[in-house]
């Protein structure tokens, strides 16, 4: 194993336990971006995720109220949209806020979206092997998205296609919904593709040069992955030249 893989292994092991700091999360993004499609990285992520999950069973299980499963099913039936559920739960407070944040609407971002330029964008979620053009260089840039409802960082090399996004703490966007990544260029949103979180985590690759964008944003959209946003962004990251 080379040094880079040793570092990635260490960071993924800590991440699986929930202990990674933001700085090291960004470092993990950079390192993984440098590896592009990396079978060994995926194996580390899977193995340490599996290992961490087993640790929960060291604890004595606790009684769960009778009918609790039915209560979950009732919630699902009553709240067709996750934001409806969120409105009356403390936990889901964040997603509710992020989807209705005032002052950060697309209008506020100046996104008239008169013309939406479609780009060929692909997103991989630790899934099938996919080649990338991303290489680790000293010119690589890492940006952190701000907002609520999830931590998201993106590594890219200005002027070259390919950006890796790594996030955690994301809720399931809801039935028939996904998260859509947008590049805002000259006030026009350009879709970077859609992604669903796995275990609250997102690892995604956008096969486009994001450096021409002024702003990156994330919204909740239908699984059809629309060509223009239909909801307000809940995470944004300005890109500086």
């Amino acid at each position, binding site marked *: 194993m080379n040094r880079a893989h040793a570092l990635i292994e*260490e960071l993924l092991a800590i991440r699986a336990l929930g202990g990674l700091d933001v700085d090291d999360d960004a470092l993990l993004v950079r390192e993984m971006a440098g590896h592009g499609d990396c079978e060994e990285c995926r194996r580390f992520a899977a193995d340490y995720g*599996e290992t961490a999950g087993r640790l929960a069973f060291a604890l004595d299980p606790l009684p769960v109220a009778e009918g609790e499963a039915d209560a979950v099913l009732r919630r699902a039936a009553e709240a067709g949209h996750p934001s409806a559920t969120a409105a009356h739960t403390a936990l889901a407070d964040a997603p509710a806020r992020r989807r209705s944040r005032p002052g950060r609407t697309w209008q506020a971002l100046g996104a008239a979206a008169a013309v939406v330029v479609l780009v060929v964008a692909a997103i991989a979620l630790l899934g099938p092997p996919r080649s990338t053009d991303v290489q680790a260089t000293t010119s690589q840039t890492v940006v952190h998205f701000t907002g609520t409802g999830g931590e998201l960082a993106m590594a890219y090399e200005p002027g070259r296609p390919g950006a890796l996004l790594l996030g955690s703490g994301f809720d*399931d966007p809801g039935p028939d919904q996904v998260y859509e990544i947008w590049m805002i260029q000259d006030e026009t949103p350009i879709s970077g593709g859609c992604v669903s979180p796995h275990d609250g985590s997102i690892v995604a690759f956008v096969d486009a040069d994001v450096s021409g964008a002024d702003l990156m944003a994330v919204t909740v959209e239908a699984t059809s992955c629309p060509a223009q946003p239909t909801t307000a962004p809940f995470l944004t990251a300005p890109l500086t030249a």
Partner: protein
Amino acid sequence: MTTGTPTLVRSPQVGTIDLAEARDRELVVGIRHGDEEAFRGLFSRYAPSAKAIALRVVRQSHLAEEIVQEAFLALWRNPDGYDQQRGSVKSWLMGMVHHRAVDLVRREESQRRRAERTASQIVEIESDHADEVVDQIGLPEERRRVRAALDELPQEQRAVIEMMYFDGKSQSQIAEATGLPLGTVKSRTLLGMRRLRVTLIGVES
């Protein structure tokens, strides 16, 4: 309800036939088809452990219950989120619960400190009922195995892993609390996780 004979699954990690995992995967398939009995089956099997880890991290019973509900709601809404190539159903479920719990305590750190004293009493009280639940859900062997694996770790590795996973501490919080250099916290975590990877899922470094 998905009641067919479970398919035998050979776990690539440990090379053994895992009937329980096969059963879990069948239940997930049932959930994908909207089978509420399959959902109840998976819930009754893992919600008690899910509640235990959630409560251990967030230290407040009502929040732990909410986390468990949210995680299982996510399972019901999007069972395709489970990818068997990435591991077992039970680890996936516990991962969802743990991530939510850690995310919550990071956001509500100050609130947690205020409630900690009360919470420790809650944990103690509710643990009194644990043994009867273990017998009901049939996971005592899993518990014994995981505890043994943790016991086999060198104390310094076990300590950082337990602070990180069970207490929801970040690497820097552990370094601050213990006075250890951050690099030492990281290296102990990795060494401990490598050992656990071998003993719990049978994957050699």
